[in-house]
């Protein structure tokens, strides 16, 4: 099977044309300017990962109703809606500093959800 993949490792955003076999192993890949493109593609065809960004409600803040958050690393796409459900009911309290851990080891992924900004 043939696929077109966009490597998002760096701003070059190489577009790779890859061919995979029935075990999702890459037979051929073209279009990547560096080896990181191939590493990205190998993961992308088996279990794609993205950084998930969303918001949680914040109480006691001067100006803000919501705190923007994100996963500190790329999280498997299959877990995104799971994490969204957890975030939906959460409340956090101001003050908050950028980088504060909001959920530790979310969905047992080894990945944390962290605050994207300070809120006073």
């Amino acid at each position, binding site marked *: 099977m043939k696929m077109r*993949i*966009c490597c*998002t490792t*760096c*701003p070059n*955003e190489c*577009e790779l044309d890859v061919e995979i076999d029935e075990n999702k192993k890459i037979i051929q890949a073209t279009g990547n300017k560096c080896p990181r493109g191939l590493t990205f593609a190998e993961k992308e065809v088996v279990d*794609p990962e*993205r*950084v*998930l*960004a*969303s*918001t949680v*409600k914040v109480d006691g803040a001067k*100006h*803000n*109703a*919501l705190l*923007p958050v*994100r996963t500190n690393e790329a999280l498997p*796409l299959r877990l*995104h*809606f799971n994490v*969204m459900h957890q975030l939906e009911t959460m409340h956090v309290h101001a003050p908050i500093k*950028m980088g504060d851990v909001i959920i530790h080891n979310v969905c047992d992924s080894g990945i944390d959800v962290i605050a*994207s*900004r*300070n809120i006073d």
Partner: protein
Amino acid sequence: MNTNYDVIVIGGGPAGMAAAIEASKQNTSVALIERNDELGGILNQCIHPGFGLKYFKEELTGPEYAQRLINELQETTVKVFLSSMVLSIHHDDNQTHYVTFINEEGNTTLSTKAIILAMGCRERTRGEIKIPGSRVAGVFTAGLAQRYINMDNFKPGNRFVILGSGDIGLIMARRLSLEGMKVLGVYELMPYANGLFRNIKNCLDDFNIPLHLSTTVTKVIGKDRVEAVEVSKVDENLQPIPGTEEVIPCDTLLLSIGLIPENEISSKAGVELNPATNGAYVNERFETNIPGIFSCGNVLHVHDLADNVTAEANITGKNAALYALGLTSSIRDNTLVVHVKTPIGYSVPSSIIKNENASIFFRVRKPISNAVMVVTSNGKEIFRGNAKEYKPSIMECQIIPSKILSEANDEITLSLEEGE
């Protein structure tokens, strides 16, 4: 209160903050005026990642990118005025500028040697593309819906149609889907997508949202609230083709149809605007036609990456500071006018200094798979680049060494020679 500053920056987004930081590094007194109640500008509502890869060398969300600049700004002596709206800019014969703004305390006028315009841009609205049909609730610009969802905790609707495949539209398609709202499709007038390829993949394909090219919304249907939109295919002249109409039941229409630099204060102050960008004409130092008034970021021309805004603003901040300190004068001699030929839509700057290396930013108006940059001066070829692909969604930068420019007469023209 001090009412005189070396440099005054208007706007506290990624352009204004970066310009203020850099100006203050030159040991100038700097004031920054922001109309919102916090710094960061539109970055605060862009909660998605994809920022900072170039400038901070790591991937950040919009709020993180803003927070880093805010933290940096707090280390400086820049005086920040929040919730303050600039009303006008005036000048006197001594080349002193006056900036008048209004806030809860009333009107204030500050004087300065140099002004940096960094007000950003605003979204084009329904009126601008004249979509026929009923004037009902439920038609939003994509950025407004983004603010409602990401900052105000409001839900703008349930079933969405998005018009325009620019990055904001694509990002919103993902965001709405993640928050449990239904995106029925993204419709694009042009035969190609306008957003970055990564956003097509990560925002539409990941969520099985269809993208319909060469299709536009031709009617809004509903009584008090949007009940449906009519979409039609368009021909090569972008005109709707009769008989291709399709009615899509939905309750919300999001518009992601382009941005306009917000230059009302600039033009009232006498700053000349380029109709190709709706931003100021600037020279290589990002100085407008009025000595001491500079412009950078999305108020100058719409960028696709905040990183490029910050880089441009750093240069502008430094130039404005050097001007304010009297270390440089306005460039009016020994310059070359920069012209562009279709399909290049515009260039920034629009004039350059003859004996310095030049970085010229431009954007093409249509995708070209393979073209060579050719620079001529008064008809004579002085530069030829390598063949590459050009896309309207990507701002390009052509660097021309001073040695080549020394061969130019009084103008240079950038053109693209299309290959096979």
